[in-house]
């Protein structure tokens, strides 16, 4: 046993670094921090930033030959590494955001904030590779617990407290249901790691279609799906999302909407891709689960998710809340890649995540900077912003157009890949619903740049709003990939393809 652990440790350095980052930052915060010492809070932030940087620098030196670590607990393959890069990069960006955000800096406990970002990042790293029911559950819980605290971080704000409480209640219920589903699956197969579950199910010994055992199996999968659905905020498990996204500090919202969602998709893909793949009778994806058309179920979830997200977003006047619903819609689009369960579908998902990373973080960054500057997230306060703050206006428009999926911006490529995947698998109707949703989304994204450019400011105030050079530079840094990936995306797709090819099955 102990040998297995020692063998695995060299492949586990990034995660070890992250957990050390968490522990060290916590200790520093306890020793030198305290009430009213905001400067030490920033020190903690810098420690976490350093830890993340070391992590990301270690990752290219990892041997990505697909293999299992710690017995069957964690899988290390390029697919997991892809998500880890995304997660830690988002982590670094969120720390940078938070250090600028008044919302976060004003808090007395700002040091702890950064500690929990580290804990959450560590949890998401585990999620990206988790291949054992226990590890899946533990990693999701680690991420959830940290994010409950982060969501309620603005203690004095009522909506923040409400958000955290809702999050805890929904999260608790969802993970309870998932755990129950997992225990049923364990009871049926006697195995905890998804590879053994796969071989047991594929052998066809434990489950009989004409028996109650089949019903139990279906039930367990639906219950596990609830847990995953909650994590990626798929309809109908999305109810916490708008409140939490609105109540949490913007930087946390940005992190939840990009990294936490990515990690949720990573673990969901790995679970469904591996556990129910029939390698014995060669029935392919979902081969071990006959009778039910699971592709159709996920397709319906995807349709519900994108449609609800887009339709409700139309009515939102608070931009944070609008982006919350838009991120629900984007989860719906990404699920289209899961529907077809093909390599192309996975490639499209990965490529979409990279693009989504840049466009969504950019949009949240603008909302955060503007809120810091004018103290409002309301759409009417964005009137005339295009003239009053040109770079911010252009940047926000580019992120929103990219989110809509219009060429020549990156978002179009993401959509192109996803639609390609579903059309290749002959789900034309799904693609049609997807594009109609894009048209709906155009309406509410356009509302924002309509306010920024076509409408006069609310009280006739046309004085320029100045932003610090740092804000301008960061905005431009987000604009560049949105344009580059729109016109030159070959390397991105090749990288995503390579990450999918070596998926450990």
């Amino acid at each position, binding site marked *: 046993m102990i040998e297995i652990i020692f063998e695995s440790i060299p492949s586990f350095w990034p995660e070890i670094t992250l957990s050390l980052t968490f522990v060290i930052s916590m200790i520093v915060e306890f020793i030198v921090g305290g009430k009213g010492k905001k400067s030490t809070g920033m020190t903690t932030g810098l420690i976490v930033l350093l830890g993340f940087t070391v992590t990301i620098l270690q990752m290219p030196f990892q041997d990505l030959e697909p293999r299992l670590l710690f017995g069957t607990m964690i899988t290390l393959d390029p697919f997991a590494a892809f998500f880890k890069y995304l997660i830690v990069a988002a982590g670094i960006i969120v720390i940078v955001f938070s250090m600028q955000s008044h919302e976060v800096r004003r808090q007395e406990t700002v040091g702890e904030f950064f500690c929990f970002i580290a804990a959450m990042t560590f949890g998401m790293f585990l999620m990206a590779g988790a291949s054992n029911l226990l590890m899946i559950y533990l990693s999701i819980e680690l991420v959830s617990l940290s994010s409950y605290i982060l969501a309620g971080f603005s203690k004095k704000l009522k909506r923040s407290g409400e958000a955290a409480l809702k999050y805890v209640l929904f999260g608790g219920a969802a993970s309870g249901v998932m755990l129950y589903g997992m225990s049923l699956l364990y009871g049926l197969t006697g195995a905890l790691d998804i590879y053994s579950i796969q071989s047991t199910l594929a052998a066809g010994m434990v489950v009989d279609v004409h028996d109650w055992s089949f019903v139990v199996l279906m039930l367990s999968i639906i219950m596990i799906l609830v847990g995953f659905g909650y994590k990626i905020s798929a309809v109908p498990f999305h109810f916490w999302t708008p409140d939490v996204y609105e109540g949490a500090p913007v930087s946390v919202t940005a992190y939840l909407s990009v990294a936490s969602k990515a990690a949720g998709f990573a673990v969901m893909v790995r679970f469904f891709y591996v556990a129910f793949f029939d390698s014995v009778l060669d029935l392919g994806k979902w081969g071990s689960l006959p009778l039910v058309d699971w592709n159709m179920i996920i397709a319906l979830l995807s349709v519900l998710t994108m449609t609800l997200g887009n339709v409700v977003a139309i009515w939102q006047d608070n931009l944070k809340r609008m982006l919350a619903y838009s991120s629900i819609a984007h989860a719906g689009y990404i699920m289209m890649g899961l529907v077809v369960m093909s390599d192309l579908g996975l490639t499209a998902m990965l490529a979409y995540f990279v693009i989504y990373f840049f466009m969504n973080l950019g949009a949240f960054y603008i909302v955060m900077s503007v809120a810091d500057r004018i103290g409002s997230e309301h759409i009417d306060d964005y009137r005339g912003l295009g003239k009053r703050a040109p770079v911010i206006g252009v940047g926000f428009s580019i992120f929103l157009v990219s989110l809509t999926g*219009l*060429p020549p911006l990156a978002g179009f490529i993401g959509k192109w890949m996803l639609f390609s995947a579903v059309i290749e698998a002959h789900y034309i109707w799904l693609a049609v619903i997807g*594009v109609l949703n894009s048209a709906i989304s*155009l*309406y509410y994204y356009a509302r924002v740049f*309509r306010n920024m450019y076509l409408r006069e400011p609310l009280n006739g105030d046309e004085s320029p709003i100045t932003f610090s050079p740092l804000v301008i530079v960061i905005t431009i840094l987000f604009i560049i990939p949105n344009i580059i990936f729109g016109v030159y995306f070959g390397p991105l797709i090749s990288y995503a393809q390579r990450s999918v090819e070596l998926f450990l099955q």
Partner: protein
Amino acid sequence: MIPHVLNVVLFLPLIGAAAVMLARRSDSAARWTGVVFSLLTFVLSLELFFGYDANNPAMQFVEKVSWIPALNVSYHVGLDGISMLLVVLTTFITPIVLISSWSSITKNVPLYIAMMLILETAMIGVFSSLDIFLFYVFWEMILIPMYFIIGIWGGKNRIYATVKFFIYTMVGSLLMLIAIIWLGYYASTMPGGEFTTDITMLFDIAPTIPLGIQGWMFAAFALSFLIKVPAFPLHTWLPDAHVEAPTGGSVILAGVLLKMGTYGLIRFNLQLFPQASLEFASFLSVLGVVGIIYGALVSMVQKDVKKLVAYSSVSHMGFILLGLFGVTVTGLQGGLIQMVNHGLSTGALFLIVGMIYDRRHTRMIEEFGGLARQIPIFATFFMIVTLSSIGLPGLNGFVGEFLILLGSFQSDVLGSPWYVVFAASGVVFAAVYMLWMYQRVVFGVSRNPENEKLSDLSIREIGLLLPVVLFIVWIGVYPSTFLDKTESSVQRVVEKLEKVQRGEYLTTSVSEQ
């Protein structure tokens, strides 16, 4: 010969837009930069016209560079007679538009000029793309500048108009996107095939698609293009967009943007899906005829000159639709020359309406009257353009409409003279609403004392209209200059369709069925 002339023509306006935005010192500097770049583009594009070999039906000026190997997408552009003519129309109209807004656009001038130049690149790109992916990128690139042109510099109801324009075109083009991807995957199912978006390859592959699927793809493409044309009953965005757009925006919209729809129908629907085209030909021709009559009748009751011209576009574009789906060389040639005609005449009408609006700040017919005595030069130009729009023999409109009617009459695909009978009534209606409007505006007694203070056209305005009128007469008297250039390309399109109709175009699917 200028090397890579098509690339230069395509990207020069974009460089101009960047130059305008970077050197936004003063409004007049921006205006001059814009005009210089657009005129230079026009001069260079003459090389496309004169250098085009009319006897060679294949694509010319071809440029091909691999762009995204992972998706087998390449930067592939080239022109045949059809697209060459439209590219030159675009480069001809853009400087006119920029000069026309010299004094009427005063707000945020550099942005306006830049948007127009971006639009020019996108439009040339749409006409010259030989890769559907590239085509789609240019096609969607139109939306953003057009959104801002109407939205920032437009009239009172501009926001409503922009949203309507945006949503209409977006729904259409997104469904086309699905068809594009679907088509690409269909190509990969061919023996030895791979995913492709290259039109020259798809021209051979797409016609073999079974009719059931071909019909859906045809419908998706056609919906997008018919919205753009706009064909009845998808035209409702057009009057709003036209009325709210600034003069320059209206001219570009009528002059070039609407042609993207009819061009798309020729290039994609007719050439990629010949069987489905034959199936849908009579349906689309009926839409065309309904559009002709409906547009004319609605024009008749308009009180606003600009709205009248906007609805007359619906009528004229109906003629083009009829010409295309008669699927005869004569009809297609007529449709093609009518695209140019409509760009010139309706573009000029919008310019004229803009000129009078700049002076009087109203476009209501009842406000005018007796202008002939006050501003005779204006009235003369207005007369020529009006007559051209009606289709008076000797001017351009006649050539186009005559060829279209003749082509539809000869058409085996339509096989009925009734199309022509109804369409020809549109010509009569056109005379009624245009001349009636002209009479009320220009002749009679002035109904508003302000009309007596009007000043006649300036040298700049005459300079704008003169080249347009020159081409209006040229095409009317000697259309062969242009028709000769397009004939072989049109013939190739029609020959393919005729082969399909006779069942000679043996395809896998046909033999299977």
